[in-house]
């Protein structure tokens, strides 16, 4: 017997979505039977824009891919550029870069915890975590001068050094954050009404998570033991001791636990970084403007998962191609699948459990030679001829 299902659209504008993205859920009663994703409301043409800018300008453009993991995108990009240039970075620069990486992870996870709590109506936890996120933001402002787009990276190192006073402030911060995180871990795993909403919801088995190419805390909560920081160390991660947190509960509770414990690990890493911080230069002094021809891929463990940047250069001061693959792209399919079988009320928290960032992810897709719609690939010559003809006919302009 065919079951009667109704389709409910969620998005592109919906209170639980912080950015536009459309989902179409097939529901029967309150239970979800299917989910479809429609993206592309947020395309900004950044990859194309990079081709018109030099390597330094691209840096500040790519920083604006995401408002939360801005440092992630610049670091991923700059690592690719630095490997093309064959630069040997000073240790202190790498350590400071890693320091900002981990501070960013702290503020991103605190933000996520608040959003997750808000999605299930637990506004008290939301307010608490966002209050503590302010502390981290203040430190980031202290170090870099900015709260959101830190602009601390530069080709060959970082732009600002930290003082002894700032070092002390950061150490105080990690102490406070550890205390608060222990408190949130307690609430997140003991408060009955919160537990009722996250335990056993949004299930994603280890096998399916690997098949769907899930990354980051989402994958680690499904017991996929992957972390670029350990598997392919970059910056100063090779010198640090830390655990890769995984959880075998495969549900949203696991994702909360993984992120909360990752914050503790981040605090440990920050302390180690400040302990071991070597003296010396923070950036390479002379960096050539022109990058030798070649291509490089760089992997980076952003707070949301593995971020991949590909840079191809043609020997000029502008990149020929920059390709960004944000972590949300990998997790979105898996998230849509994890919703099936749960209730309508679980949609927000299940989608939010990947910490989605749609504007990082959106790219255009162009269908070449699509016969159904009559779309055909045109060569440059054809386009030019078309333009000349059009202007001659419509505007009377002769070229």
């Amino acid at each position, binding site marked *: 017997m065919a079951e009667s299902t109704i389709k*409910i*659209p969620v998005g592109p504008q*919906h*209170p*639980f979505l912080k950015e536009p993205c459309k989902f179409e859920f097939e529901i029967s009663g*309150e239970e979800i039977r299917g989910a479809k994703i429609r993206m592309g409301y947020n395309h900004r043409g950044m990859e194309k824009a990079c081709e018109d800018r030099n390597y330094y300008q691209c840096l500040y453009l790519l920083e604006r891919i995401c408002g939360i993991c801005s440092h992630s995108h610049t670091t991923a990009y700059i690592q690719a550029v630095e490997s093309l240039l064959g630069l040997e970075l000073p240790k202190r620069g790498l350590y400071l870069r890693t320091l900002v990486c981990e501070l960013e992870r702290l503020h991103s996870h605190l933000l996520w915890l608040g959003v997750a*709590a*808000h*999605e*299930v*109506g*637990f*506004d*008290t*936890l939301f*307010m*608490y975590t966002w*209050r503590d996120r302010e502390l981290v933001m203040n430190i980031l402002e202290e170090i870099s001068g900015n709260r959101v787009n830190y602009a601390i990276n530069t080709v060959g190192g970082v732009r600002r050094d930290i003082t002894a006073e700032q070092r002390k402030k950061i150490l105080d911060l990690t102490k406070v954050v550890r205390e608060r995180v222990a408190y949130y871990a307690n609430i997140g795993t003991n*408060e009955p*009404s*919160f537990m*009722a*909403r996250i335990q056993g919801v949004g299930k994603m088995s280890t096998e399916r998570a690997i098949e769907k190419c899930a990354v980051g805390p989402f994958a680690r909560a499904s017991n996929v033991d992957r972390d670029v920081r350990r598997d392919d160390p970059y910056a100063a991660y090779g010198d640090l001791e830390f655990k890769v947190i995984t959880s075998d509960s495969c549900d949203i509770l696991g994702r909360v636990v993984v992120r909360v414990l990752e914050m503790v690990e981040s605090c440990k890493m920050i302390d180690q970084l400040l302990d071991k911080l070597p003296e010396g230069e923070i950036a390479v002094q002379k960096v050539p403007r022109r990058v030798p021809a070649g291509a490089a891929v760089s992997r980076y463990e952003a707070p949301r998962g593995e971020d991949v940047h590909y840079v191809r250069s043609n020997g000029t001061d502008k990149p020929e191609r920059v390709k960004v693959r944000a972590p949300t792209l990998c997790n979105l399919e898996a998230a849509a699948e994890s919703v099936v079988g749960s*209730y*309508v*009320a*679980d*949609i*927000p928290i299940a989608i939010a459990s990947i910490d989605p960032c749609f504007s990082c992810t959106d790219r255009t897709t162009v269908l070449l030679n699509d016969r159904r719609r009559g779309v055909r690939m045109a060569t440059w010559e054809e386009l030019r001829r078309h333009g000349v003809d059009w202007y001659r006919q419509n505007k009377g302009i002769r070229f």
Partner: protein
Amino acid sequence: METVKVMLYVLVFPGFLFQMIYSTYLEWVDRKLYARMQNRRGPLYTGWSGVLQPVADIVKLFAKEDVTPAASDKFMFNILPLVALASACTAGLYLPVWHLTGYNSFQGDLIVMVYLLAMPSFVLFLAGWFSVSPFSLIGATRVLTQLFAYEVPFFLALLTPAVVAGSWKIADIAKYPWASGNWWVIPLQVLAFIVAVLALQAKLERVPFDIPEAETEVVAGPLTEYSGKKLAVFRIQKDISMYAGSALIAALFLGGFGGGLYLGALQLVLKTLLVVALLSVIRGACARIRIDQIVSFSWRYLAPMSIVQFLIVLLLKGGGVI
């Protein structure tokens, strides 16, 4: 003279005017407490410590554009907010404060008040149903499902003090602990009190039972399509329902508001504030549960708790202690 008194009762205290003003104050208390629990300041700028903020919000809503969706049933869509407000206000009139006459105090007025308090939920369902939007429809069905969950435990809990006093008249029930000298029945009924407070929280659709209007799931549930004046009327209704519901619980479980106009009014304020404070604390300490979870929670915990309380009272009554 009697007519003037009745008019005063209906229109001024504890009738329409008092309800309007006092309920906005209760909303402010609720918002302020909730904010302090969340380490925020809450309303701050309108009036002393933002005490006029709820009024300002309502005034603002009245000035906003009022949209009636083309697909909705126009008559029902427009009339429903007033029905909800009227039933909430009328419910408030049955509270045993100050001046009792045959109009507002008779055998069975408890039943009348409980049904009047249940009316806004039905109205909310109809409002969602007639606004014809997917979110409103889902919200409307959730309102009804939730109603089945909390209404029976709520009735059972309110039955206990009625059985103790042997009366269906709220004034008699409120007077009983003092009139009979059995003041210890107040702590005895703590289980029923807890059930009643939780059920009232569900009736008012507040966290953790704000399922019908869960913002992140169904936008605003049944009220999604409402705006401007009509939304403002629903807001006033919600405040007055909170006032009437908490005052009913205070009357039945906390010893009522005897002692004439001044002492009665003072007791009314203090006791409703206590109940509202409890409601705010629950709101601050919980996450929103799911619709299936509220049904199982109500029938697994609230209903048995109220039945146990009922049995205790019946046994004591049978033993001749009460």
